[in-house]
């Protein structure tokens, strides 16, 4: 792609970007949210047709004009979008050849031929999937593979993977990487968009860093250096990407749960969390490890009163009941939910209205809102969390991912909780904002708040927490301190079966 520029009303999304992808390479495209990665790939996929941008696209030294994604497909470009979009009611084979069910044409589909073609395709890609299976029964990783197979169905020469690992666990990611490696051996060129540094190191041959719509740096595999790459992404060096702990952990136990059990929402006689007990001290950060589905989220959501559960809960030595979030909040608990789009933010509200929602009593008298006070309170959090927005009255819908996440954090902090559960606090957040959120967590710990943190990014979890508890299949699989912690031990515990005796 040569000298690509693209302007949206009011914003220059890309300016004179030139990237060169070598055949048979795995080319990583990285950058913060809003750097222009997806825009660039949408141009390559024909979503933004020829004529709507400046510059040229060359495929094997030949200029091509792509007027639609369908056109891009014909030219040998396969695109796997960020969001998994499979049709749940259909089989794997039908999903792979969606829209191309019939090779010959006509309105009648020969399922025999369809399944044969799917089996052949999956086999050649070494994807272990049964074409007859209903997609509804597949997990996230397998669905992702279906999406990839769909992109590969037209036998492209270039495959674009847009944050393909965002919702995969470590194991599933490894599986995906094996497939990508195999495809390279078959002569396929892959453009791989990611946020995760570890993945870059693992599979990329070459990396292009985009920042603010321009190419900030290029790296060959031999030159890969984490600090250099991060610096190129954010435009400055971040010295302490993971800030150091500079506060001591208190002696006083702030939070304790005994024998927490959360029944399965749909299946009788099954628990998603079983017999989990732990405590957190003043200013301590407890890391809750485990795979997706191990019961991590369910644990914190139950403790915040969002799921029915049994077990005893104590805050500062006093036993409390948390049957509803209302009771949990009143007892000094706070929860940052995993998905800010789903249940984190009110998109009909401005920043200040979101921030103050958890404690309206602070900004009202006789139940009448004091708006000057509300603005002042929100302003305080805007500054403390360095939320970048024109004003506290800006609607949250207009903010970037990182700033949205900070608003959710401000919201949870507003009632001044003593115990804070953070479920994936840096999910879908760019590198700069991640660093700021880490610093915030450290300062909260220094204030004496007890934190329980869930994160699927192991380096992050290991760098931030004082103590670790790993869940597997709803039970505690292992517990260890920071000194004893390493990635292997955490992963080993996370992938251990429920048969393993509890080390409690």
């Amino acid at each position: 792609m040569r000298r690509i520029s693209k302007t949206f009303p009011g914003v220059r999304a890309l300016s004179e970007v030139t990237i060169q992808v070598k055949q048979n390479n795995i080319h990583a495209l990285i950058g913060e949210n809003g750097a222009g990665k997806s825009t660039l790939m949408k141009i390559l996929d024909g979503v933004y047709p020829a004529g709507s941008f400046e510059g040229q696209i060359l495929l094997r030294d030949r200029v091509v004009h792509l007027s639609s994604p369908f056109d891009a497909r014909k030219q040998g470009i396969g695109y796997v979008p960020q969001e998994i979009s499979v049709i749940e009611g259909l089989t794997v084979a039908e999903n792979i050849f969606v829209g191309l069910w019939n090779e010959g044409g006509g309105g009648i589909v020969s399922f025999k031929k369809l399944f044969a073609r799917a089996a052949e395709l999956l086999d050649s890609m070494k994807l272990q999937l049964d074409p007859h299976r209903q997609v509804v029964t597949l997990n996230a990783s397998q669905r992702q593979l279906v999406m990839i197979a769909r992109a590969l169905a037209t036998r492209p020469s270039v495959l674009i993977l847009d944050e393909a690992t965002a919702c995969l666990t470590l194991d599933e990611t490894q599986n995906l990487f094996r497939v990508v490696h195999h495809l390279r051996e078959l002569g396929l060129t892959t453009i791989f968009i990611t946020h995760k540094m570890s993945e870059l190191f693992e599979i990329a041959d070459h990396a292009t860093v985009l920042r603010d719509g321009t190419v900030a740096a290029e790296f060959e595999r031999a030159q890969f250096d984490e600090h250099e790459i991060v610096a190129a992404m954010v435009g400055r060096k971040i010295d302490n990407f993971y800030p150091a702990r500079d506060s001591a952990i208190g002696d006083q136990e702030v939070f304790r749960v005994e024998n927490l059990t959360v029944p399965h929402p749909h299946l009788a006689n099954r628990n998603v969390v079983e017999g989990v007990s732990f405590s957190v001290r003043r200013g301590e950060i407890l890391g809750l490890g485990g795979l997706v589905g191990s019961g991590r989220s369910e644990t914190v959501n139950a403790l915040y009163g969002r799921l029915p559960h049994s077990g005893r809960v104590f805050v500062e030595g006093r036993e409390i009941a948390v049957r509803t979030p209302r009771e949990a909040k009143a007892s000094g608990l706070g929860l940052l939910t995993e998905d800010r789009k789903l249940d984190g933010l009110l998109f009909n509200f401005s920043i200040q209205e979101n921030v103050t929602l958890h404690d309206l009593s602070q900004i009202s008298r006789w139940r009448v809102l004091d708006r000057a006070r509300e603005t002042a309170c929100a302003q305080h959090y805007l500054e403390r969390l360095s939320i970048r927005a024109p004003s506290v009255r800006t609607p949250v819908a207009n903010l970037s991912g990182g700033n949205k996440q900070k608003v959710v954090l401000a919201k949870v902090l507003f009632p001044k909780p003593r115990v804070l559960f953070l479920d994936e606090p840096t999910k879908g957040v760019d590198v700069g904002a991640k660093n700021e959120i880490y610093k915030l967590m450290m300062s909260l710990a220094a204030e004496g708040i007890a934190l329980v943190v869930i994160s699927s990014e192991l380096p992050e979890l290991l760098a931030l927490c004082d103590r670790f508890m790993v869940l597997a299949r709803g039970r505690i699989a292992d517990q260890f301190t920071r000194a004893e912690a390493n990635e292997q031990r955490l992963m080993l515990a996370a992938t251990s079966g429920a048969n393993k005796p509890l080390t409690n």
Partner: protein
Amino acid sequence: MKFLRKIWTIPEAGILVPLLVFTLVFYCINPTFLGSNSVAAMLRAMAFVGVIAVGQTWLMIVGGIDLSVGSVAGLCAIVSSWLMKVQGWPMEAGLAAGLAVGLLAGLINGLISVHFGIPAFIATLGMLYVARGLNYLLCKGYPIYPIPDSLKTLGRAEPLGLSWAFVVFALLVVIGDFCLRRTTWGRMVYATGGNVEVARIAGIDTTKVQISCYVLTGGMAALAGMLLMSQLNVGQPEIGVGWELDVIAGVVIGGVSLFGGVGTAIGTFLGLLIMQVVRSGLVVTGVNTHWQTVAVGVIMVSAVGVDLLRRRTKIS
């Protein structure tokens, strides 16, 4: 141009501009349209539906809907006139009982839809039939009159050259708007309507907030029914027939989203006003009255369309 763009960003702009345009057009065709008699008549006419629309505004912002308001208004009028005429209750007691019936109907609507999870559309459609049926059972299909003289004078009174019904409506708009914008309750209503789960996590008792909106809407339906009764001077069993559609049309034209979380009471006032202006304007200009109904339909759909357009231009 800059001025126009600024107006465009005001939430109520989608209604304010066409409202002014329509008024101007009708005024040019027939200047008596803005005469004091004509204006007073318009304001009086919109009062009954308007009283209910304030409640419906809250309810729809919180994410609910009440289709039974017209029937409940009718039932409450009949119950209170029946108690006063047949049972000989004093006026105050009769009115209080009518109001209680409205609040109870609202409570039942709220419990069924919020607590038991039957969709509000179905639950309140059921109440529409039940209330209308009870109404006819009670009065056996005949109007109940006379109603007490004191109530009659109240209904005929013309404070500010208008009517008590309009005064009540105007007060409710002002109070209703204040409650929504400036009280913690209003904030909880917007939050619950925006995303129930987020509101619950914030510690808001969303069930209580939602049910309170149903109860208030029921109460306002009762108020509207009894206000019309006092003005007509008779407990008319047909009071409130078809009101629910006018109420919802007004609320929606005024900018309340059917999905909840958005809207204001002032917006609803303007929405009702535009409906009334078009209706009266078509009469004044001598157009066949059945065109009024056509016009209301067209206005409602275009109002929502303009609102969508406005939101889109604001974000990009």
